[in-house]
């Protein structure tokens, strides 16, 4: 500041004259300078031109950075933008021409704190000096951080970021709404992750801008739109990495409130690992990146063939165990019959083979199911004592239920229960005599 800050009034009049028409202009100083002359009467246009020239030769004014607040911006049909830049005590008119307006990544809004770069010139026809802005950016990160912190504290105090508000994600989402930009890598990444991991679902893209002027409003509209859809189980809001300014729309209060108001869980995946926006706090689940958001949205189906295989094995094991239990049970009756009917041995062997066949059939896949079920039926029928009884054999039991295998087990007069194919006979032993032949 102190060093060589040229001020308008430091410029020697001669220099100005030289910058003007070379000679004899109306502004030429009188030839005899010290002599008091009659006051020069200038035309307005002469005056304004002189002011313009003064400003034009000032190196500082030709290249200034100014911070201030945008006031009353207007956007006439010309495509240019006119506004006033002001601080607490002063203001200056500013112009942002169409081309520069398009290049700026924000649209000037009333009350917006900005840093502009440009030059100061006088506009002769109106006798005003103004700032011709070449670049316009939101004011410094420090200020954004302050706003971020203030809003975060306010919304947190309302409880919007409470853990208790977080809803669990559906395990098997059918339709997933995705709010993001349709161009760029983010949407492509999300679709690829879902295609690879969870091709069962349906992705419903709601395209919107996720950066620049109006992005926050666009995100809010997109979210509300997806909320109105039937059958949406989950919403992903995503954007790639960027500067704090780029991600600013995710710190917008209305965006945060719209996320909180979602009827279904919302996963927010914005930027990189280190970028945490207020939208992230409001989300039911915060993912560090858009791809991670897609991964958290649904299970990886790649693990399910193995899971299905294990279920199949467990079912087969349970069936084999069930059959083995029946086999043991039947074995007791079977042993009783063995003494009565020598060919039970053969039947038992046949039954065992059938059961083995049944087991083998069980562990083959679906096509074996019916066959194994029939084989099991055959096996069970063969094992049953009923078949043997049907052939005319009988089982004799003592009163306590013991199966009689030896005449020595009973004495004359003992009650015997004789089971035949279709019923039971209550009898008494007349004589018990041991025989050598069955």
């Amino acid at each position, binding site marked *: 500041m102190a060093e060589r800050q040229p001020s308008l009034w430091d410029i020697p009049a001669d220099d100005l004259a030289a910058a003007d028409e070379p000679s004899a202009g109306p502004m030429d100083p009188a030839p005899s300078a010290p002599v008091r002359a009659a006051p020069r009467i200038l035309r307005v246009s002469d005056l304004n031109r002189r002011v313009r020239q003064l400003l034009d030769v000032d190196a500082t004014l030709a290249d200034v950075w100014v911070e201030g607040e945008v006031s009353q911006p207007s956007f006439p049909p010309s495509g240019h933008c006119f506004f006033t830049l002001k601080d607490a005590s002063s203001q200056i008119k500013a112009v942002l021409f169409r081309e520069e307006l398009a290049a700026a*990544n924000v649209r000037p809004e009333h009350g917006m704190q900005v840093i502009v770069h440009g030059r100061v010139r006088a506009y002769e026809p109106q006798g005003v000096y103004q700032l011709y802005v070449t670049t316009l950016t939101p004011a410094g990160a420090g200020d954004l951080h302050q706003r971020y912190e203030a809003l975060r504290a306010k919304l947190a105090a309302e409880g919007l970021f409470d853990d208790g508000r977080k809803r669990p994600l559906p*395990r*098997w989402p*059918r339709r997933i*709404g995705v709010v993001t*930009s*349709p*161009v*760029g*890598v*983010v949407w492509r990444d999300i*679709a690829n992750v*879902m*295609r690879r991991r*969870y*091709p*069962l*679902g*349906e*992705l*419903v*893209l*709601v*395209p*919107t*801008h*996720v*950066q*620049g002027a109006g992005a926050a409003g666009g995100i809010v509209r*997109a979210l509300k*739109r*997806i909320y109105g*859809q039937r059958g949406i189980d989950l919403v992903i809001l995503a*954007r*790639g*990495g*960027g500067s704090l300014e780029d991600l600013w729309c995710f710190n917008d209060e209305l965006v945060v409130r719209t996320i909180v108001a979602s009827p279904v869980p919302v996963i927010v995946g914005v930027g990189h690992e280190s970028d945490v926006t207020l939208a992230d706090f409001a989300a039911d689940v915060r993912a560090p990146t858009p791809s991670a958001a897609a991964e958290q949205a649904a299970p990886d*189906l790649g693990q*399910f*063939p193995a*899971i*299905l295989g294990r*279920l*199949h094995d*467990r*079912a087969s094991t*349970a*069936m084999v*165990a*069930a*059959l083995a239990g*029946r086999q043991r049970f039947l074995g007791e009756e079977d042993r009783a019959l063995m003494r009565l009917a020598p060919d039970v041995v053969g039947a038992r062997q046949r039954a065992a083979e059938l059961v083995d066949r049944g087991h083998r059939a*069980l562990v083959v*896949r*679906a096509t074996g*199911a*019916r066959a194994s*079920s029939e084989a*099991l039926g055959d096996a*069970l029928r063969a094992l049953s004592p009923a078949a043997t009884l049907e052939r005319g054999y009988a089982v004799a039991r003592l009163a306590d239920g013991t199966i009689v295998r030896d005449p020595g087990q009973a004495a004359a007069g003992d009650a015997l229960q004789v089971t035949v194919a279709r019923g039971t006979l209550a009898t008494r032993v007349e004589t018990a005599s041991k025989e050598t032949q069955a």
Partner: protein
Amino acid sequence: MTDSAAPADLAGRPFDELLAELQRIVQALEAGNLPLEESIELYRRGLELHVACETRLKDAELTISQLGRGLTEQSSGADEES
């Protein structure tokens, strides 16, 4: 072949329902307190579900749709991310 063999009631149901039913069947079989005929019937049903699940996984294809019009060309450039 697997498709035509699968019972009609499986075709229209979501994968997770089929899987859940299969899991219930396996648990019931493992509990082991069912009559044999019922076990065999459950086991058969389990195998059908197993085949249906595998088929569903094999044939799965992501559906993508879009809500609303695309963005206008002039503004879409602003969203390109590096």
